[in-house]
């Protein structure tokens, strides 16, 4: 099971980073969301995987590590705030700059594509 779990974490990381390296704000936001899933799973796994061992006293015979859980719980909520901030920033950037590029200068595209790329209003 651990191997499968680790594979999933690795895959989510890879997908998240690939998307974060794209040149448009929305792809970056999606990528960061994927990456935060991976990070949360990773941090959670540092308490080791246990089945039927909720960290509630009296509910089970052994308890999973509650500390990473507490950390990840706040991380999920803060992660939401971060995603929200990033996405609003992306919208504001589009409103103020007229496009959703985050890759420096505008890429050289054929005219018709350029027009479709979000530089229009």
């Amino acid at each position, binding site marked *: 099971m651990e191997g499968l779990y680790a594979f999933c974490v690795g895959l989510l990381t890879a997908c998240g980073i690939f998307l974060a390296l794209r040149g448009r704000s929305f792809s970056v936001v999606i990528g960061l*969301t994927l990456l935060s899933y991976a990070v949360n799973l990773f941090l959670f796994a540092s308490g080791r995987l246990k*089945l039927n061992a909720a960290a509630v006293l009296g509910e089970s015979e052994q308890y999973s590590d509650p500390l990473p*859980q507490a950390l990840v719980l706040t991380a999920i909520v803060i992660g939401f705030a971060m995603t929200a901030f990033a996405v609003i920033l992306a919208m504001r950037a589009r409103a103020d700059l007229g496009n959703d590029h985050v890759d420096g200068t505008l890429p050289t595209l054929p005219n018709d594509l350029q027009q479709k790329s979000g530089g229009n209003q």
Partner: protein
Amino acid sequence: MSSLIWLPFLPLLGTLVPLLFARFSRTACAFATAALPALTLFLILSHSGDIFHGERFQAAIPWIPAIGLELAFRLDGLALLFSILILGIGLLVILYARYYLSAQDSIGKFYAYLILFMFAMLGVVMSDNLIQLWFFWELTSISSFLLISFWGHKTEARKGARMALTVTGAGGLALLAGLLILGDTVGSFSLQDVLDNGDLIKASANYPVIVVLVLLGAFTKSAQFPFHFWLPNAMAAPTPVSAYLHSATMVKAGIFLMARFYPALADTNLWFLIVSLTGLATFLVGAYIALFQHDLKGLLANSTISHLGLITLLLGMGTDLAAVAAIFHIINHATFKASLFMAAGIIDHESGSRDMRNLNGLWKYMPYTATLAMVASASMAGVPLLNGFLSKEMFFTETLHQASLGSLSWIIPVLATLGGVFAVAYSTRFIHDVFFNGEPINLPKTPHEPPRYMRVPVEILVALCLVVGIFPSLIVGDLLLSAASATLNGPAPSYSLAIWHGFNYPLLMSVIALIGGLFMYYSRSHLFKFQAQFPTSDPKLVFESVIQFLTNKAARIIAATENGSLQRYIFFVLTFAVIMTASSLMKLNTTAGQRTEIPLDALSITCAVLLCLSALATVIWHRRRVIALLTLSVVGLIVSLAFAQFSAPDLALTQLSVEVVTVILLILALFFLPQKTPKESSPRRVVRDLGLASLIGGVIGTICYALMTRPLDTISTFFTENSKTGGGGTNIVNVILVDFRGFDTLGEITVLGIAALGIYKLIARMRLYMPSSDDSGLPWSEDRHPILLTVISQSLLPLALLVSAYIFLRGHNMPGGGFIAGLITSVAIIQQYVAHGVEWIKTRIKLDYQIMIGSGIGIATLSGLGSWVFGHTFLSSWFDYFYLPVIGKFELASAMIFDLGVFLTVVGATMLILANLGQLTTSERPVQKEHD
């Protein structure tokens, strides 16, 4: 002596005084400004008797003792001497500047800078801690920058100030490095510990590095060759500044540093070589250049360089007597040079020129000032019966006793005499060219005597030159002795301060210097002709071109690396990160650890496959944004299932509710963003990014696997054991959040609140146009609020709120709590927004989400503060069990109030973000047809 701590801060308080008094008359302002430094000087002098008896005052307030940070001051002989110079000459300069500055100059600003500098300088000489000393050292650089650039409308003032700051600032950085290594070597940043461990330092392998770095700081500050070029350019400052900074105080800070660390660093061959050779070179170069200056202040500046070189040379000689001579010359140079600068300022002020080719025969116009200036420059030349003569004699004596260059040691006294010849020559030039030598040429003003009180500071200083020259031991004997013993960190050697030592070599050298200097001045026309053959190079231009060269290089490197692409920066950072982690992973012998793995089951495999497929689908279809969003939400759901599977019910609930909120947020955002991403990455870039992403994914996966298969050594047993007894709850995760680590949670909800408010501000002035159709050109549905959704959501609301309340109340003992309850409530309210629209909600639910965030954080903080009332530490929780009929036994815990704060903040923040974003679609705004 606890007042010692506050003593240096009196002038700092004084920086405000001139700003407050500037509206009154200039005299009032000057007197008010002088009050606090005068008080400080008085307080310091009141301790002088004890210091002369060998006492040393120290006081410290610890700050972070573990890393040696403290506020520590000391008052010993050396600090006393420098404090008197700083405050005494500072007071004279305040009086002088009152007459020097014109009506257009803001005298309040000038005095404020001056006092700030005075404070910084006092801090340097009284510091008893290395880091603190450095801090004040840098403050002198900054405040002197402000003073040099006081006439900021002049180009040369700005350039001179920049140059001084660059050179002394760079030296300051070297000094910091040196002091850090020094403190590390000794194991303490306390000055006294450093001074007492001289042998340890000199034996350490770090010693050469420390010496070079500390001396770099000292040499740049004290304008030693080859860093001397900034001082003449700093002459663009108003003359009171030059008199204060560039004769008596700031340039002496480097000398002070060498004297201060003399017991710790001096007395080695390395020290001797660097310090004495630098001093000798500076002494000669300064004296030579001074002779050929036409600007009065230029002559004085270069002569200052020369005298600083002389003091440095003395400090590098390694004998105790040479150190005494150095201290003595510090006093003497400060008195005659400050008075000469002031005299030069008077001449400039009353005649309108500083050019010695035009200034001639001023004796007729200002005989009184001329007398004063002549006495001071005679002292500079080393004429008997003046203080300059005494220390120069001591200097000559010490050069004769030097044997460090072996059989070539005779060079030092010969070169010292040569320097003396030049000193006499430029002093003679100062006297003869300015006050005699014919008639003034084309002066802008007819020269006349200055106002009475402008001359007073000069009179006092010149009087000091005379009395010290005639009765040396009576006037400065005690001060010199205590300063010398403080410098040596031990008893001072015996020496005599008499004027007449009989016929000996030093006297002969003085006579040669006097006669040779006069002869040199007499035949100056040949020398000037000879000098004119050299190509002139302006150090300012050289400096500017070096700076320009560096700026251009830096600009080119920046242009090559920083092209504004965020992706490019992330790429670099990630590449570096993967190299760092991968290289340490390679040291691990096996990937798998000892721990037995959980066997696989069909459900987990199915979920994992689904997760991987949806993640890949998100990547593959990321350009069709709505689809990517849907597949992304599948990933999120499976992640929450994973939390549920691996015994983290709280996380599963949180992830699930956050997932809902996130997807609603992203769909709302997508409404305003392009629906599709055009294909624009080159295949090469796709391959590059794929490669890096897979590499990092592989590394992270490996770490994760290696981590999970190794035994766990956790600190959580403490939480498990104390959760019920100490925190009163059985849900350990919740007890950690609201009790054990409650302070962290308080911080996190504050961050959440700040993020929400930031988003609110970003939305508030957003001007986005709403697309009137989707990306395939179809108009939006007319049915904005489907009746089915409206009815169901309305009936769901009370149920959802009930569930939320239940989750909240049981949170302390069962999975749940403020975070989750808050998210569920938010989802329930958002559902109403979606079903009915913003206008409908606004008339029915009147909630101010900003106030909600504020009160949430407020309640959480107050519940923490509440424990203070009962004498407990911040955020300790209280709980007890009660019994009520019908309901039965129940628990009340103060942690619940804290959790209520968390709940309110989460609801407030989530709703502030989503409700305001949703509002964008409804308010009256221009609608423009989208083309894509």
